[in-house]
């Protein structure tokens, strides 16, 4: 039984119609990446992140971003201990394995920057002392796509640090009815959820992912897709080399959790949208015509030849 199947069987009873999000989050975790979840409030973004943390026996922390939140509120600070007469480090919530950063775009740019730097470096410096963060370390940030007031949109350079952007949508009517009718049972199951993969097993899986085979033609395929995002007439800013690296990493993880030790072009097609969507900036004249990054990705995928022979 593949790793994903095992997890999906458990979470499908708690997270209704969230298989796609779960598979992407697990793939992101295995790729040592971070995920940005975009969706309106009330669609189980927090529950999804919590569930992932519990399934892997990982430490989970949640940070609710507000405009007055300071970098030290996230990273931690040295506090004077009157008993010992010394300064002691009080660690911030960033010292956990999975961190849910709710409404990341509500924090001030200074706080955002501190968080994103920690995400990239996987270490923090507090008053000149550099401290490594826990391993594995994954940030699941959420943002509401319909808010424009009192928010600080993430700059493109910082968006690039997220491996994937997962667009969370409402469940179907059938799923919605299922959630409403079984909410008590769902909450109870969520509370009683036990880890199915230990921390050690997770490290083993992460190590195995690195050994997933990628044929040279797959690298060429990814390169042609990423380059096409740059040369597309409707694009102002296309995918960076980091985008290509992210695609390969995520494709390897996705192949692994599906029980394969090699990447196929289908994996690339599946992960192209979540990896590239937040890295593409559409030209204003095309944006007003209704062109969206997802349209451009679809267009590129429909034109880029798959590896041959």
């Amino acid at each position, binding site marked *: 039984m593949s790793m994903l199947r095992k997890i999906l069987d458990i979470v499908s009873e708690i997270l209704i119609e969230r298989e796609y999000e779960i598979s992407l989050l697990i793939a992101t975790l295995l790729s040592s990446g971070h995920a940005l979840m975009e969706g309106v409030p009330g669609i189980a973004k927090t529950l999804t992140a919590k569930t992932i943390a519990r399934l892997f026996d990982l430490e989970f922390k949640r940070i609710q971003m507000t405009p007055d939140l300071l970098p030290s509120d996230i990273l931690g600070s040295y506090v004077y201990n009157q008993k010992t007469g010394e300064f002691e480090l009080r660690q911030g919530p960033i010292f956990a394995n999975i961190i849910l950063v709710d409404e990341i775009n509500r924090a001030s740019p200074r706080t955002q920057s501190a968080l994103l730097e920690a995400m990239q470096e996987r270490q923090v410096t507090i008053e000149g002392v550099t401290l490594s963060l826990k391993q594995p370390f994954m940030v699941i940030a959420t943002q509401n796509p319909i808010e424009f007031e009192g928010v600080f949109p993430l700059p493109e350079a910082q968006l690039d640090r997220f491996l994937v952007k997962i667009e969370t949508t409402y469940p179907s009517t059938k799923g919605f009815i299922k959630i409403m009718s079984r909410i008590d049972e769902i909450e109870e199951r969520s509370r009683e959820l036990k880890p199915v993969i230990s921390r050690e097993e997770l490290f083993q899986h992460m190590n195995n992912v690195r050994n997933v*085979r990628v*044929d040279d033609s*797959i690298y060429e395929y990814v390169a042609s897709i990423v380059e096409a995002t740059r040369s597309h007439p409707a694009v102002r800013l296309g995918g960076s080399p980091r985008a290509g690296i992210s695609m390969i990493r995520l494709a390897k993880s996705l192949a692994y959790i599906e029980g394969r*030790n090699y990447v*196929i072009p*289908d994996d690339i097609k599946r992960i192209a949208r979540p990896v590239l969507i937040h890295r593409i900036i559409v030209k204003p004249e095309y944006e007003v015509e209704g062109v969206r990054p997802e349209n451009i990705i679809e*267009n590129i995928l429909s034109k880029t030849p798959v590896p041959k*022979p």
Partner: protein
Amino acid sequence: MGSKILTLILLILLILLISTTLQIYEKTYANEIYDNRHTIGFPQNITYTINISSSELSEIINQLKNIDNITSSCKNIDCVQNISSSYIRSVANRLRDEGVLSNDAYDAINILSNSGSSDYKDLYSLINDPEIRSLLSQLNTSDIQKFAELANSSMNRLMEMYVSGRISYKEYAAALELIRRLALEKNVYDIYNLAGEREMDLLRAIIDRSYSDALLKMISASKDISLIEKGSSNKIFVSQNNMSGSNLFSGFEGLRLVQIMFPSIPLTMILEIAVVGVLITLIIMLLRLGVNPLEKISRYITNRGVIDISKLSNLPTPIKIYWMAVSILSKRVPRYENETHREYLKKIIENKDPSSQNFSKITEVYELTKYAGVINKDLEKTAEESFKEMSRR
């Protein structure tokens, strides 16, 4: 950019198609005969310009107008017979010659307007219905006391038969005239007057119907009918080329022909419009969905997803076999450049291709060889056997 140019080309083609269709419509149908039906949903405010002699038209219109005045002013058929029987007959002759009055209606008018000229026998011979003949025989032999009662019931029965269409104008007119004459002979004046009134009603009905038929047939018979849109006008009127805009029916409100003078749109034209509409909708929908129909067609023709097998000489056998299988299957199910091996296999299975099972094995081996880097004899053998099996089918 390419999509925009294509959209522009398609729009130009559509405009050309629509304009050509309209021109064909104008040339083919605008000169043809129109019937008297109005197609629901199409404009009613259209002016006809007809090419017939103005004096001829005026004469017929005036004659019809005169008869309408006569029938409106007379209560009893005696009035018509005494005053203008010859005039009515001459108009009836004219209308019959124009083909707008049926022989039945013509005979009925002659009976109604021609008092005393036909004897009993002649009138009786015009009636074919056995029930009426029986009723008339009974009336003829009945005594005065019973006559009135029997004549009343007979006239009611005649009315029923006429309304239901069981008897013709001619039979109805002849029967009424016979009853009227019998009533006069037997000095039953109530019945005489009642029968005269019924005859008058019948004459009016025939004249009214003749108006409509006559005018519509005259319009239909005209050789050059052109359509002129008159957006601001709420009326429909007939005019001559040299009298454009003048309403010949003004002051002749009793005609009430407006309701039935609208043009019908031929069925073929409606079908053409429907086809063009469906095509436009389809193309707009495809473009909105981001599907470029011309690109799809060109890709289908060129079938670029297939590889040149001669270039595969240095590759592992399963890969060569896969592309050979694709070259065969792509003739039935086209393969596109952007399709992965799994997507193409899915398409083959969805198409219920007879080779789908063997091709599935070939694809599986191809995937393992190409992307997992597995090369062994067993896989080669599986691919070869599946390909042979596929070729036999």
